[in-house]
Structures are given as structure tokens and as C-alpha cells.
């Protein structure tokens, strides 16, 4: 039986940082199966988790000083909630884990502690029927696990409630920026290319000066949409995410056109202001996918209304931007 430490090594912490940035997050797994933490006996609790190493680390770290069995389901390296939504952390997977680890021969009791957020993919009554183990839903966050066990496997309302604190929102920012990747590079290349178009067909000088302003307009939009929106989320007005992003986007866009006031005409300033606003507004809508309170039906409702507006605004900004050099 593999034994795991309840203290994270320097390497674990280093990897946690790189994963938080987004690097290698799709291939950060541990081998599924049964592990022991401390010196568990046949009476020790069984805690079930996903095989995403970040999740695995968070759970074992919280079990410091507790003797327990850690049953790691094969969720293909995806965290509990996302895996539950994709039916990877599922009734079938729990049954498979229980049978392949021969858990019934190792422990004398018939109880599994599952993370509450795993409930999206698991039917407790079907697990009971399938393998005889009763599912007890533990707290939402692993940090409450020790308290939950100490209280005789009971969770209070706070343990059962999902939160989205400033710290949790801030942790998402690096990965939000990282996943922009390829589309961002294409947009930047296009911005420099389009900026060079003018009355003398193509001007390298204009591509650079106007391109830089357009590049910064994009970056300001990204910072507003991907950084300020998550950070200021509870303070921003309106239910829809797109106006929250647009509001911060207008602010960021104004700063950008002031910085580039010496090289931009009125039309060009307007075009960049629209562009920064659209970028921030779009990324704000995109951020709904990372929050734990926006319903998919709500997101679809919002997108059907605002994506066409964002599309038209982008087109308008593009037309003004390309036409501007021919007007002056």
C-alpha cells in the first residue's frame, strides 16, 4: 500500500505555483488507487478524491495528524467539481475504485467520505446499492476536512456553502491570462498589420506607432476583463457580466488613449476605446465559466444578447481604425 506524506515537499509547492500559472495543468496526475495517510487501521475513515495532483496535495496536506485511507478516483487529472460535471468523478468511477482497490477487504466499516462538490457526478444511493458503501458528503473545501472528521462526520452550513473570496478569485487570474495564448498572438499580429495600412498602401512606421497603440489597447482590455473584473467582482454593478467588463474597459481604454494622445486622431481614439471596451466586456462574460455561481442557462441567455453587440462594436472599431489614415 503506498503511503503519502501529509506535508508538501518543496517540489510540490514549486509545481503548485507553475500549475497555478497554467503550465502543464492538463497533465498533472497521480496514480489512482488506495493510499494510506498516517497509520490507518480497518476502522479509519476513507476519504475519496480526484487524481488531479493539485487536488490530491490539498487533501493530503489537510490530513496532517489524521490516520485515514485516501481513495483516489481516476478523473483523468481533473479536479473534483469539473470532473463531476463531466461525469468523470461519477457513480461508476467510485464503484470501480472501490472494487479495484478491494476496499471492502481492507476496512471493516462501510462508509466513504466524498467531497460535497463531487455530488454533481455521484448518486449516493446508487453507490450504496452498487457496493454497499454509504456515501457521506464531506465539506466543500478540503481545508475543513479535519474539522469535519473531528465533529463526527458532520458539516455545518459554512462547510456546505461554496465561496468565491478575493483570494479564490485572485488565484484564477494567472491561468485566465495564460489560456488566452494563441488567439491573443493572432490578434496582436493582426493589430500591427492592420495598423500599417494607409494611403501609401503599407507604412512600416504606421504599423509600429499605430500598432503599438492598438496593442496596448488590447492589453488594457485584457487587464480590465481578466484581472480587474475578478478582483472587483462583488463591487461591480449589474447582474450581467458584460457591462461589468465594459465599465472597467471604458476606464482602461480612456487611460490608453490618453497615453497615446500624441499619435492618435479623434477617430482612432474612438476606435481603440471601443476595442478596449469590447475586449474587457467579452473576457468578463468568459469569466463566468470560472465562477461557482453563474448558471449555464444564464450564461447562454447573456451571450445570446451581448455577443452580437460585441461583434458589431468590434466591426465598427475595425472600420474606423482602417479608414482613419485615409481621412486625415
Amino acid at each position, binding site marked *: 500500500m503506498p503511503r503519502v506524506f501529509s506535508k508538501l515537499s518543496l517540489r510540490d509547492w514549486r509545481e503548485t505555483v507553475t500549475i497555478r500559472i497554467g503550465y502543464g495543468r492538463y497533465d498533472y496526475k497521480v496514480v489512482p488507487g488506495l493510499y494510506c495517510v498516517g497509520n490507518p487501521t480497518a476502522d479509519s475513515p476513507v476519504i475519496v478524491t480526484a487524481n488531479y495532483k493539485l487536488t490530491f496535495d490539498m487533501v493530503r496536506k489537510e490530513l496532517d495528524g489524521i490516520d485515514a485511507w485516501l481513495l483516489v478516483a481516476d478523473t483523468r487529472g481533473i479536479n473534483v467539481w469539473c470532473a463531476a460535471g463531466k461525469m468523470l468523478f461519477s457513480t461508476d468511477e467510485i464503484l470501480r475504485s472501490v472494487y479495484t482497490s478491494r476496499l471492502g477487504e481492507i476496512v471493516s466499516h462501510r462508509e466513504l467520505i466524498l467531497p*460535497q462538490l463531487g455530488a454533481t457526478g455521484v448518486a449516493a444511493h446508487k453507490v450504496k446499492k452498487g457496493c454497499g458503501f454509504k456515501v457521506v458528503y464531506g465539506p466543500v473545501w478540503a481545508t475543513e476536512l479535519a474539522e469535519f472528521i473531528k465533529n463526527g462526520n458532520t458539516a455545518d452550513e459554512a462547510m456546505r456553502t461554496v465561496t468565491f473570496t478575493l483570494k479564490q478569485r485572485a488565484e484564477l487570474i494567472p491561468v485566465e491570462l495564460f489560456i488566452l495564448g494563441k488567439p491573443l498572438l493572432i490578434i496582436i499580429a493582426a493589430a500591427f498589420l492592420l495598423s500599417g495600412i494607409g494611403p501609401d498602401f503599407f507604412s512600416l512606421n504606421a504599423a509600429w506607432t499605430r500598432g503599438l497603440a492598438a496593442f496596448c489597447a488590447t492589453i488594457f482590455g485584457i487587464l480590465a476583463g481578466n484581472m480587474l473584473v475578478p478582483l472587483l467582482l462583488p463591487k461591480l454593478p449589474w447582474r450581467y457580466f458584460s457591462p461589468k467588463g465594459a465599465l472597467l474597459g471604458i476606464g482602461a481604454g480612456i487611460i490608453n488613449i490618453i497615453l497615446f494622445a500624441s499619435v492618435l486622431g479623434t477617430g482612432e481614439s474612438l476606435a481603440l476605446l471601443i476595442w478596449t471596451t469590447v475586449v474587457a466586456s467579452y473576457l468578463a462574460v468568459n469569466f463566468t465559466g470560472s465562477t461557482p455561481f453563474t448558471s*449555464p442557462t444564464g450564461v447562454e441567455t447573456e451571450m445570446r444578447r451581448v455577443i452580437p453587440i460585441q461583434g458589431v462594436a468590434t466591426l465598427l472599431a475595425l472600420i474606423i481604425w482602417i479608414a482613419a489614415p485615409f481621412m486625415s
Partner: protein
Amino acid sequence: MKDLRYLEGVATLKLDKDACVGCGMCQTVCPHRIFEVQDKKAVIMDFDACMECGACAQNCPADAISVTPGVGCASYLMAVWFSKLTGKKVESICC
């Protein structure tokens, strides 16, 4: 989550009171605490806090709850719309 709310009246959550056996599993698993068991029947206390995770429906032994959240997150929805325009297959890009 009282300070963070999304659109109202859109969630697809449905509760069949007659089928409910009052076991309280929905109340246990809901991460937004929207259910309460009153007089041996589950009651939806805060409909608009529902994020359609489906935990309640999944764990209801009486099949009294249904949630049909549709296609999912924003980037996935964009990929679906793009694939309709271009005719290409949808690449999975979500978490």
C-alpha cells in the same frame, strides 16, 4: 454568496413536490443552500441562487428534481457557435 448573484428566473431547476420523499439529500449537497425540508417535503428557498450544478437531481432517490443546464461555459458555447459557422468539429477547450 449573498453578494454575488447572477441572472434571475433563468435556471432550469424543477422540483416535483408530490414525488419528494423528504430525505433531505438535496439540502445536504446543494453548494448554494437553496433547499430546505419543511413538513417532510423539500422546498426551494432561493431559486435564483441555483447555478445548475445538478448535484440535487443526481442525489435525489425519488427522481423528484430535474436540472437541464444545456451546453456549458462561455468558451465552449463560442466554440459550438463557431463550429456551426465553419462546419468544423468542436474542440474541447474547457477545464
